């Protein structure tokens, strides 16, 4: 991600960066054997503020959680944004691609 606004954001968020987080939707028993995850990968062009906004819009995350995932993408190269059934994961990846983020659908191993 571009660091156009990275410095201020990182300073502001440094104390809140935690271990990698994985968002899991509450699911029925029949869905639990269909583990897919939505992964967002780092991109040097997309602005950090833009990525945060996309996470808020697509997943409905509050700003702090969206920023945490954004920083995880920035520092670790990827972040698992969501996991659950394949159809829903495909929907999220399509939404992310619509915002031009690098996102993939992966089977949980």
């Amino acid at each position, binding site marked *: 991600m571009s660091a156009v606004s990275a410095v201020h954001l990182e300073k502001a968020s440094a104390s809140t960066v935690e271990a990698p987080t994985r968002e899991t939707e509450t699911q029925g028993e029949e869905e639990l054997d269909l583990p897919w995850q939505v992964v967002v990968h780092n991109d040097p*062009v997309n602005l950090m503020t833009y990525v945060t906004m996309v996470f808020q819009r697509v997943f409905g995350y509050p700003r702090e959680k969206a920023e945490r995932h954004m920083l995880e993408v920035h520092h670790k190269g990827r972040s698992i944004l969501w996991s659950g059934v394949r159809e829903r994961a495909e929907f999220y990846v399509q939404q992310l691609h619509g915002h031009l983020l690098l996102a993939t659908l992966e089977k949980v191993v």
Partner: protein
Amino acid sequence: MEICRQGDALQISDLDPFLAELLRQIPQSTNPDGAPAAEERLFSRPSGEKEICAEWKSYVEPELRGLFRTASETVAADLTQLNGNEKSLRNRTLRIPVEHADAWLNTLNQARLVIATKYNFSDEELNDHDRSPIGSRRDLSLFQVNFYGFLQEFILRELSGQAGCEPD
């Protein structure tokens, strides 16, 4: 150049001819033709699994192309305000309706990604905001990427209600 929000529009005023020309180049800058890497970046693979990728290419990619095209056409329509020769562009004002903000964010992102991929800019270059646009086509393109990024930041700030204009 001054940039602020006026009512239900984002306003870019006191545009000099150079920046006005960069704005006019936004729609055409989204075109990845002749640069397969840029095309691949706009329509990146959704998975490592062939079956998913094949389905994606058939059903999702056309939708994404339509989405990107519609956004670009919206921006192009707004930019007709800047039509004219260089002299007439002096101190011109561009008004972007707030409801077009998403189309602008998307199109600016398309343009930034295509340009950056075509020139294969390094992280260091992308973070060098002080480089002069005068020197080479590469320097100009880097300036273009950063200028479009600045516009994105402004639009994002306005959408989140973090900025405002002085009243007239």
